């Protein structure tokens, strides 16, 4: 174990100290920050702040609309009210448009007949302000509905509560299963694993190829077991990836939790996870990462050059992508046969078991969880073991494939 640690530490320090690591670690958070600041700026722009004038024969309608446009959730306009208007008014407004003192004006003509609606016409300063047009249209709609309801004799506060957006909570027996949160968490787990495996899994393979060409392996193999070397590489190179991802995640969390994000999102996506879910998230992520890195190590042991490795790249993420398609049936029936089988299949365990733990009622048996973890650890060990044989025999056999009796002898020896 000590040797694994030594190898891992060396691998980790060497990589973390490179400029490439430093740059990529810092660059991504900078881009994230830049993106958020950018979207804040854009976000402010996207709430129209135009200055318009409403000309209406109906004073009440005009002031309601003014209130909606000036303090509504989608707009921050400046609205002047002229009530009622005449032909002189239109002339003045047209001049103001030409002078660019005004972004547009809305002309409301009185309704014709008792059941008729008033007619509206909007004259913008330029044809481009489509956004203003839409905002005004929506605001008008709301104002008119409120007015109609008030006409039917409804109290103003009732009208407001009726107009509130509807929120639906999903409750399941005994606990609030916030399935949106669970799905977000599973989605994040999938994306994170996919990204980290693609970005860093290959580094493990690359580092093993590198070791072959540097010829250090012969010195190492004269003291330590090839499994120890493999495990050390997987852990050391893996930890570099985790460090980077951790830096990114922490930055992302700091950025999103700040008021800036609140300003952008307006209505926050509320993700609530139980401590258990968070613990399982970490456990399954780490195990999944280790498993896939071990496979990368085996791939690295098999090939002799980076080019050969490129061709095997997709092989690495294929099982993971396969799990993605199994997610839908598992979600509809988290305790079904398919879900249970897949959740114990080590390559799918991280995603599928996590999904089940998050969604299943009654909860997943503890023995299933324990078994899935045991199976994963055993698979990681087995993959590393095979990888180390391939490696050792491969580099020293001068291209000869090991046959069974030879493998048996290796078994006895190390």
């Amino acid at each position, binding site marked *: 174990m000590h*040797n694994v640690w*030594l190898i891992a530490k*060396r691998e980790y320090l*060497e990589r973390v100290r490179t400029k490439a690591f430093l740059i990529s670690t810092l660059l991504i958070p900078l881009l994230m920050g830049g993106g958020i600041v950018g979207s804040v700026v854009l976000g402010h722009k996207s709430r129209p702040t135009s200055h318009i004038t409403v000309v209406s024969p109906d004073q009440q309608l005009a002031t309601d609309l003014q209130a909606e446009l000036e303090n509504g959730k989608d707009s921050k306009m400046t609205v002047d009210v002229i009530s009622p208007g005449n032909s002189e008014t239109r002339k003045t407004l047209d001049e103001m448009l030409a002078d660019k003192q005004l972004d547009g004006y809305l002309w409301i003509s009185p309704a014709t007949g008792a059941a008729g609606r008033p007619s509206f016409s909007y004259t913008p300063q330029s044809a481009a302000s489509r956004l203003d047009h839409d905002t005004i249209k929506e605001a008008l709609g709301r104002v008119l509905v409120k007015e109609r309801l008030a006409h039917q004799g409804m109290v103003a506060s009732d009208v407001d509560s009726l107009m509130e957006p509807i929120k639906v909570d999903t409750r399941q027996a005994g606990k609030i299963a916030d399935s949106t949160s669970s799905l977000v968490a599973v989605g994040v787990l999938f994306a994170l694993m996919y990204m980290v495996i693609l970005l860093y899994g290959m580094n493990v393979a690359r580092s093993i190829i590198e070791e072959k060409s*540097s*010829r*250090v*392996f*012969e*010195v*190492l*193999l*004269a*003291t*330590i*077991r090839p499994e120890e070397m493999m495990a050390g590489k997987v852990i050391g190179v893996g930890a570099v990836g985790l460090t980077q991802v951790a830096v990114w995640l922490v930055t992302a969390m700091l950025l999103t939790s700040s008021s800036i994000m609140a300003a952008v999102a307006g209505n926050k996506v509320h993700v609530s996870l139980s401590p258990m879910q968070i613990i399982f998230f970490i456990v399954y992520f780490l195990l999944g990462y280790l498993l896939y890195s071990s496979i990368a190590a085996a791939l690295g042991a098999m090939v002799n050059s980076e080019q050969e490795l490129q061709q095997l790249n997709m092989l690495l993420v294929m099982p993971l992508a396969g799990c993605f398609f199994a997610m839908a049936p598992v979600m509809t029936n988290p305790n079904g046969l398919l879900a249970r089988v897949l959740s114990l299949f080590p390559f799918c365990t991280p995603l599928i078991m996590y999904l089940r733990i998050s969604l299943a009622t009654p909860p997943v048996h503890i023995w299933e969880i324990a078994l899935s973890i045991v199976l994963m650890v055993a698979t990681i060990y087995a993959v590393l073991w095979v990888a180390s044989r391939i490696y*050792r025999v491969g580099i*020293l*056999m*001068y*291209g*000869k494939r090991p046959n069974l009796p*030879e493998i048996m*002898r*290796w078994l006895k*020896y*190390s």
Partner: protein
Amino acid sequence: MPIVELQQVRKAYDTKVAVDNLSFSIETGSMFGLLGPNGSGKTSSIRMMIGITVPDSGNVLLFGQPFDRKNLRRVGYLPEERGLYKKMPVIDQLVFLGQLHGLSAATANKRALEWCERMEITEAIHKKTEELSKGMQQKIQFISTLLHEPELIIMDEPFSGLDPVNATLLQDTLVELRQQGRSVLFSTHRMDQVEKLCDAICLIDRGKLVLSGGMREIKSRYKANHVQMVFSGDGSFLRHPSVESAKNYNGMAEIKLRDGDDGQALLAAAVGKARITRFEVMEPTLEEIFIETVGDRVDA
């Protein structure tokens, strides 16, 4: 007790037999030379001693025991193909390798500094390996095999690629280690180094044992029937009846005498004809023995 023993070891790779029924043993505390031309199976034999590869048949005993990984901490191994981490500073590299052999970081560091001083590379300890010359890298690798004070030192072609000054430095270090009671095994295809350094040798060719035993004993098997002489003047005495064959390199002659001849008659004949500056009756060199023995086998 032999520190290394090979018993009828055989190792075949895909297309060729690298080691064929090889048996020899190395006594504790000796300096042992493993000799042979390129591709004769030296590296294959060494790799089997330290468990990097496994023999197809036969036994390899290390410290009198069958292969056991924990015994490897008592061995220092310098592979033929040198390998160091290119981007790693020298001192870190040495400490890392020392730790892998079971030293604490502090001990490894202390010994590494002492050795670097002794090997005259102190100024390089904070440089990355890739910035150093080949010879420097080799010295670093040499140090890394000795940090953990191994009882058995195995070096595959330790002197190849070194300039004469550094080769001598390494040779002297090995001799000193032997005097401290360590056992040293090194392989080489250069016979002259072996004659000077080794107590015992084993000569292999195409995976087979050609010759093995103590250095003196082997040479004494061959009679002192060689003469080296330096002269100026008439060289016609080289056709003297005592001479079986002779090569004359412009006043420097290598002569093989007929069986039973002690060379005195030849000397007397030469004195009358030429001016002699050197006349030496000697045992055959290892190289000659090698050529003779291997040549015989090829003929047979």
